């Protein structure tokens, strides 16, 4: 049972803290940066797969 629980605990405790930007200091305390980062624009998450490139010099 412990073999199953320990990885689950690690995923449950360590991963969320990484996601909210916690960083261990090496001491008993842990500093967390919970500042909200600006969201990536939706349009930037949907880059079409059919992209082509054009290059011009126009004076």
């Amino acid at each position: 049972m412990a073999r199953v629980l320990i990885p689950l605990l690690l995923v449950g405790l360590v991963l969320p803290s990484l996601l909210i930007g916690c960083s261990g200091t090496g001491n008993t305390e842990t500093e967390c940066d919970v500042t909200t980062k600006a969201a990536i624009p939706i349009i930037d998450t949907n880059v079409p797969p059919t992209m082509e490139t054009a290059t011009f010099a126009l004076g």
Partner: protein
Amino acid sequence: MIHTRVGYAGGSTENPTYYSLGDHSETIQIDYDPTQISYRQILDVFWASHNPIYEPWSRQYMSIVFYHSEEQKRLAIETKESEEARLGKHILTEIVPFSEFYLAEDYHQKYYLRQEPALMAEFSAIYPATEDLIASTAVARVNGYVGGYGKLATLEKELGLLGLSEAGIKILLKIVAGGLEPVCTLPDTPS
């Protein structure tokens, strides 16, 4: 348009800069979705956006189509011939294979957007690194709108996708609706 960037191309000087351009020309590079806009339509904008019948002051200001495929080459030649027939004059635009593009300095990228500090600040918060700013479709599109391109109806459709705050949206709508002066006014481009 998916991405836009400005830089230098067409010469042999390695790692050119604005103040040490060598034999390169000022160049724009565009990534586009061919299912939304064709290369021919982009060429139409290219021919309409400048006057290629006059000898440029220097290679810095040359008119050049750098083709990335044989199809682009064919369309460039075809449309150049059409323009010459329409104008009844010889066009000096060179049509050459693309080889290398050097990004211009950060302060040249997204020039129009930089004239609207509130909007620029919003995108800089999302993309602190210029390389990420350049790779953003939202930034490319807002830069175009601020520059006086694009229609209000098009903007209204995609407003929620651009990542702007309520305040940023108000500023952009004002610019595009005509409440604020756009940075420049040039012929309208396809959306």
